[in-house]
């Protein structure tokens, strides 16, 4: 900082540090809220809350809502809403449950648990989810029916087509290949997790400095090197801490014995293994990274934000906003199918009420994460963080014995307060009228 001598001491100094680091203040606020939740429950539970086991559980429980929240960011940014995501999740889950247990085995004459059947099932599920979303998008984009109405209708329709798909029965799912997607049954172990964590950290550092080089090549002023280094350090630290923490959560001995028996070997005395990263969390991270790149670095993402900022301007700039609407909802449907895969694997069954009321959690996660219902504003990382904050709150309250009704009251209040604080913050900054 060359202007150090000029800036007033105290607040100005502090503000300039945040400015120099170019940290989004809103992100900072969410991280602080998240930290506050973590600290309060850690003290309240005497440390159990931040134990590797609970961190693992919170991460795994957050995944389905967080995956869908990523898609919801695009929907809401484009000035739409999707109330049918919970029902679409149930519908995709029903299709996948039936095709892997009944339909495909009877067509191919294979047994339940055949990996090829699961592969085809996943493709069918994802395709069906995308199709459902595309139909919604067509009704909204080309037929100009308000998305609130189309998806409110979809909420009823898909929830009950789901019921007919399985004849109202729950479907038990035991295929170990499927259960891998659910969390505890599909983990990488400590070594692989560390390797992946180090690779991710290296990519993050490379990305930061590649972006810096690109800016410099056009002669723009860039952050001082120390600021880039601090940001890189924070990100690398967060990645490695997360990986390291989950790699300290041991797999129970009884389960290890069972796994060894399944292979027909006797478990060596004193053998231990750690959970490490769950596959479902990796799926979420992949979705988060891809969606962030799409939002910031592709024309598709740029057009979504333009359409949210000013639909007429987008149209007059030659953007085909109708086709864009179809794509946005199709992507939402695809992510619902992905969330359905994770959810049914975690629950090890498909039940009629799977994904019930999830639409509200998904919207809440996006909104807590800073997505503006008026459109044009929102971030993927914010939505994931929003989902994480909600899940942490709920998990923490459950741990200290708060009743379920009261848990929901708190989550509802947090939603309102999050938006309230955001409005106050924007008013202070003069960002809104």
């Amino acid at each position, binding site marked *: 900082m060359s202007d150090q001598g000029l800036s007033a001491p105290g607040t100005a100094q502090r503000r300039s540090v945040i400015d120099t680091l170019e940290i989004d203040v809103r992100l900072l606020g969410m991280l602080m809220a998240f930290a506050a939740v973590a600290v309060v429950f850690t003290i309240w539970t005497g440390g159990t809350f931040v134990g590797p086991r609970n961190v693992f559980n919170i991460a795994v429980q957050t995944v389905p809502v967080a995956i869908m929240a990523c898609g919801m960011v695009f929907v809401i940014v484009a000035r739409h809403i999707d109330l049918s995501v919970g029902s679409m999740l149930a519908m995709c889950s029903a299709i996948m449950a039936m095709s892997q247990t009944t339909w495909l085995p009877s067509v191919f004459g294979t047994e339940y648990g055949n990996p090829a059947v699961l592969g085809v099932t996943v493709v069918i599920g994802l395709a069906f989810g995308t199709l459902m979303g595309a139909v919604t998008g067509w009704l909204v984009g080309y037929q100009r029916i308000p998305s609130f109405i189309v998806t409110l209708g979809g909420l009823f329709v898909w929830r009950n087509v789901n019921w007919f798909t399985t004849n109202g029965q729950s479907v038990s799912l035991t295929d170990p290949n499927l259960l891998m997607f659910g969390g505890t049954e599909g983990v990488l172990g400590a070594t692989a997790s560390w390797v992946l964590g180090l690779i991710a950290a290296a990519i993050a550092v490379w990305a930061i400095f590649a972006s810096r080089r690109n800016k410099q090549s056009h002669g723009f002023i860039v952050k001082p090197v120390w600021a880039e280094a601090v940001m890189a350090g924070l990100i690398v630290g967060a990645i490695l801490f997360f990986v390291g923490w989950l790699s300290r959560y041991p797999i129970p001995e009884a389960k290890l014995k069972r796994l060894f028996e399944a292979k027909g070997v006797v478990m060596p005395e004193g053998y231990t293994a750690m959970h490490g990263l769950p596959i479902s969390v990796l799926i979420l991270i992949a979705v988060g990274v891809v969606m962030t790149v799409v939002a910031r670095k*592709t024309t598709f993402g740029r057009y979504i*934000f333009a359409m949210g900022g000013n639909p007429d*301007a987008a149209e007059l700039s030659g953007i085909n906003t109708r086709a864009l609407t179809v794509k946005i909802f199709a992507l939402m449907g695809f992510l619902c199918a992905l969330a359905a895969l994770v959810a049914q694997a975690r629950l090890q069954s498909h039940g009629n009420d799977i994904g019930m009321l999830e639409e509200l959690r998904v919207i809440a996660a996006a909104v807590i994460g800073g997505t503006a219902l008026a459109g044009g504003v929102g971030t993927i990382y914010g939505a994931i963080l929003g989902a994480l904050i909600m899940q942490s709150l709920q998990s923490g309250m459950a741990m200290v014995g708060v009743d379920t009704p009261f848990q929901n009251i708190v989550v509802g209040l947090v939603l309102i307060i999050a938006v309230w604080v955001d409005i106050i913050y924007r008013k202070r900054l003069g960002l809104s009228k």
Partner: protein
Amino acid sequence: MIDRSKPPVDAVDRTKPLVEMRDISISFGGIKAVDHVSIDLYPGEVVGLLGHNGAGKSTLIKCLSGAYRKDAGQILINGQEVEINNPRDARDQNIETIYQTLALADNLDAASNLFLGREIKKRGIVDDAKMEAEARKIMGRLNPNFRKFSVPVSALSGGQRQSVAIARAVYFNAKILIMDEPTAALGPHETQMVAELIQELKAQGLGIFLIEHDIHNVMKLCDRASVMKNGQLVGTVNVKDVTDDDILGMIILGKKPAHLAA
């Protein structure tokens, strides 16, 4: 950026019309917003479109910019009949429009707005740094005081927003420029800037349709003026041959001045 390698002004054939709109009609729910109107535009010429609010001038021009679809009539560009069904078609004909409402996405920065719909890409991804560099170049020419490249355009003043909108039209080598009250939201200094820009673009052989309420601006900037009333064309006059009052008369009375009507 304006292509400096373009043929010199004299090489532009100013005798053949750039745009001919023939017998254009468009109705909304039984109301004839534009009723069999024909206007044309030559290279290096500024044609003012005048009339009361609701006279149909904006509607007429939106048929050219692709925002509306005409019900009947022909549009010829360089003597060739073209179909303009949406803004993309208009862009393909090198028609650029600066709208009265500015048509900017408030939540995006200047460079994103400038390149909206025509982003510069590198290996399939949007190259923001390159776009910002290009935006800085053109804005440096149009509005040297412009500095706010990294904030959403909602944080800009009316004049700054207008220069973003103009930069967008100018950057992509427009041959036909439509300006819908470009100075309505501007202060005197910025209005002067726009006037100079219009002169410069004109000298480069662009054809400009200027929708304008201010008669002084019309007299100053335009070569010809077409006046509309109640969806119909009152007439087109050479600005040199008429006075302010003549044009005012056409707008209010819907009649050509006596010395030209004969």
